[in-house]
């Protein structure tokens, strides 16, 4: 992969630390700006490379907050986040984040293909335009998710499921190593659900690391390598199946 000429943020070039887990958080405390009490209260999670980790818990337990913090969208009050051994922001290109659908301006005059191309921007940086390779990647991803016939459409004209697939397409186009998926199959039609599961399986087979906030543990045929349960901003229980080990609040029961 070519490095960008002028990256969006400094420290972009940090290489993965050898032997470091894909994601490691230590006593992570996150407070939303303006909120009085923290949304995450000392979450320690370790997800090793190539693991599919499920993040489960009731609404408001901090699943989305956790993913947002790892994606660098929320300030860390205390504790630490390490992605491949580096702090958040040192390797933006290795982390892709699939937000919930409501966080984007769907009325914006941009085509589906261009939206997917924005997934390549992190590799381009300032003053560079998407090249042929970027377009090829976007086209391939759109085809894979069954959106190729809609590539020229304005994004607001898609159905909910198609919009979700478009966002997933963008995350895939980024070719990241760690993917943070926030409720990827929530409220979508059956076809989209199947497409998303297929994509997740193939990511797993490629050895990518996935952290998936979900209500549905039967996803991926129940083949999550690890399950992290959150409740009220704390790790409730952790599975000792390969990959995850909670430190602070180890499962005792």
């Amino acid at each position, binding site marked *: 992969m070519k490095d960008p000429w002028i990256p969006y943020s400094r420290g972009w070039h940090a290489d993965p630390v050898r032997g470091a887990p894909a994601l490691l958080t230590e006593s992570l405390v996150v407070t939303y700006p303006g909120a009085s009490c923290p949304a995450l209260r000392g979450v320690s999670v370790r997800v090793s490379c190539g693991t599919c980790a499920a993040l489960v818990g009731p609404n408001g337990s901090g699943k989305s907050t956790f993913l947002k913090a790892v994606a660098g969208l929320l300030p860390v009050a205390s504790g630490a986040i390490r992605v491949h051994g580096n702090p958040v922001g040192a390797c*933006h290109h290795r982390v892709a984040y699939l937000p919930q659908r409501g966080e*984007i*301006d769907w009325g*914006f*005059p941009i085509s589906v293909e261009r939206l997917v191309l924005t997934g390549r921007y992190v590799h381009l940086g300032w003053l560079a335009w998407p090249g042929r390779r970027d377009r090829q990647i976007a086209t391939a991803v759109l085809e894979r998710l069954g959106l190729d016939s809609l590539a020229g459409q304005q994004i607001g004209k*898609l159905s909910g499921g198609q919009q979700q697939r478009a966002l997933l397409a963008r995350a895939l186009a980024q070719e990241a190593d760690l993917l943070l998926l926030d409720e990827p199959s929530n409220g979508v*039609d059956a*076809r989209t659900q199947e497409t998303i599961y297929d994509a997740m399986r193939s990511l797993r087979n490629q050895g990518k690391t996935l952290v998936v906030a979900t209500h549905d543990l039967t996803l991926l045929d129940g083949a999550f390598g690890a399950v992290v349960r959150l409740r009220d901003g704390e790790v409730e229980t952790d599975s000792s199946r390969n990959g995850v080990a909670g430190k602070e609040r180890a499962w005792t029961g």
Partner: protein
Amino acid sequence: MDWLIEPFRHVFMQHALLAAVLVGVTCAVLGVHVVQRRMAFIGDALAHTTLPGLVIAHLFGWSLSLGGFGAALATGLLIGWASRRHAVKEDAAIGVVFTGMFALGVLLMSRTRSYRDLTHMLFGNVLGVTTEDLWFIGGVAAVVLLCLAIFHKELELTACDPTHAEVIGLRSDRMRFLLLGLLALAVVTGIQTVGVILTNALLITPAATAALLSDRMPWRMLLGALLATACSVAGLTLSYVAETSSGAAIVLCCTAAFMAAYAARSASHRLRPTASIPVTKDKPNKVAMAEEVSRCN
């Protein structure tokens, strides 16, 4: 055709046309971003807040453009900064700052003797554009259009999906500051042609018209630029023939174009309600969803 060519035999009309087209195109292209980001109110505020800067520059014999730009830039930064802190609601902050600045401008104006000169600031004086002004306007046009071209993908992304921008390390507020800076520049040149009060029309009307006609950014920019050019020519000709205010004539031509586009759009929707359902390439929502449902069953 003579009535169309005749006015532009005069040098002052040639200058006016060049100025109006340069300003119009710059504002229209920038306006596409402004309209899309719902920043129309800020554009208006920036235009109005230049007034005290203009008057002070006039009093001290400085360059009017620089005075106006300084005031607009200060306001832009202030608004950007205030909206970042969320201490005051953004539109309220803008309302307070811009009316205050405008009132200060009017107050200063009423204290100066050459009150008449300053009405040019309120309503513009495109017929009085000097060669020097033209260089300034051309320079601003070049800077603004170049910046919009260079940073197009970042401006587009931070407006469409600021979350993704943030995730890849691109700070949305920086792009917003850039846009505010460009806006301040464009507004100062707009004041030359149509004046403080009507500058926002050059920013908003052609861009809003283009938004009715296309759902792609580049097309909107091109359409907006073409519209602005046509309206400049039409407005200036009209004002020459009918001996009316040139700035107002240009703005009214833009308004007429907007109304025509709106009417055309409504008519085409009413006449062909199924117009947007083509064969396969772009399936609208309901068809695609119906297909998905049938596939699921």
